[in-house]
């Protein structure tokens, strides 16, 4: 266990260095689908945080009982249970938002991000590390979703959190809140992140 990262390292790594969306390219369905508004993006991130934290902790607790060939099924069933909790909770307390998110809440079950974290971290390490990993990864996920959602909402409707930011003369780029805008925004931001980290790496190498 000496070569495994500690809880604090897992937490830090999840946010930027191993950002689940920009670095590992995991969980792309919700990244593209629910980022037409900041509110939807934050609700989605909160749901993912809850599900990932609970699933990671449970998997970490039972990691010694897992049989190798059955582990993926156990992961998905654990995740499905917590997704049902999250779905019912959202439908009870923020009904409008749960209508907007629609099928993308149940689709958290097959989000590769959560299965990947269960496999990479929770099934090998202790509860505290698994919990810290879940929170770090979810914050990274939230950051990525919000960055895309902010660009799309600002350019598409001129608003942030449904409050008008750009002047009224701004011609709304409706295409940004429609499906093509999601692909274009994410592609451009991903290129930007790659360019920035390449430059950082080159600067560090040049010194």
């Amino acid at each position: 266990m000496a070569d495994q990262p500690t809880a604090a390292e897992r937490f830090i790594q999840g946010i930027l260095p191993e950002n689940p969306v920009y670095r590992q390219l995991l969980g792309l369905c919700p990244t593209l689908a629910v980022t037409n508004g900041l509110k939807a993006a934050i609700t989605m991130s909160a749901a993912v945080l809850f599900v990932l934290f609970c699933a990671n902790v449970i998997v970490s607790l039972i990691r010694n009982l897992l049989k190798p060939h059955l582990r993926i099924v156990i992961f998905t069933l654990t995740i499905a249970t917590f997704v049902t909790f999250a779905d019912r909770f959202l439908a009870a307390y923020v009904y409008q938002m749960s209508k907007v998110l629609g099928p993308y809440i149940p689709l958290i079950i097959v989000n590769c991000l959560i299965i990947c974290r269960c496999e990479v971290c929770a099934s090998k390490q202790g509860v505290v590390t698994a919990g810290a990993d879940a929170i770090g990864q979810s914050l990274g996920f939230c950051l990525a979703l919000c960055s895309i959602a902010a660009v799309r909402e600002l350019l598409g409707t001129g608003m942030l959190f449904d409050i008008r930011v750009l002047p009224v003369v701004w011609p709304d780029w409706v295409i940004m809140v429609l499906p093509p805008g999601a692909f274009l925004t994410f592609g451009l931001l991903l290129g930007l992140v790659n360019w920035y980290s390449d430059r950082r790496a080159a600067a560090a190498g040049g010194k």
Partner: protein
Amino acid sequence: MISYLIDIFLIGIGAALINNFVLYYFVGICPFVGVSRKISTAFGMGCAVIFVIAIAAVISWAITTYVLMPGALLSRTVAGLFVPPETAAGIDLTILSYIVYIFAISSSVQFVEMYVRKFFPPLYKALGVYLPLITTNCAILFACLVIMSKITGVDNPADAWDLGRALTLAVGGGIGFTIAIVIMAGIREELDLCDVPKPFKGVAISLIVAGILSLGFMGFTGVDSGLRKAMMPKPEVVAQVQPEAEAGK
């Protein structure tokens, strides 16, 4: 009868082209980005998805109709053995749906894999590597969820989808996925020869290409209502079927 056939046709077209699973609903993005390097592998993946999505649709339609929906036949009968019939009639197991669907999908993928390996070795060689990946393909679960919403979410029980509609939606969606991923693979094969700026190499440029593709597929918007108007034989039938058009969307 004729309106039923038109309905089936429009559901299929809608799932395959107008509301394409990948380019409109963003489900199945992971294989769309990951397995779209060569046309042949993309086509293999698409065929495997069509195969599994059809099986999953039949299973989820049967489970939803007979077990999960409020007052479903099978669960009502079983519950009637233990509690009074009037209590049993109010049984509602929809809360279990996500767990049941994902379990049904992953076990059916396992069974399909074993069956194909035993009886159709050439098919297994072609599809084999992709089958396990499909368990976590959102497109399959998404099709199950849409079918569920068309059965439990309708106000009038007579509007609930039958097996034909459910199967058409699923196969149409699978074909739409195949179309999108094969087009993407064709473009990426050409992109390999292009001089793409370094930070955009790989996934970033593919996403931008997908955005342009999605823009192209938006051109199909409204085709379904136009087709429906053109194909409906008499005005009174149009008035009668119009609510279904809303539901079928």
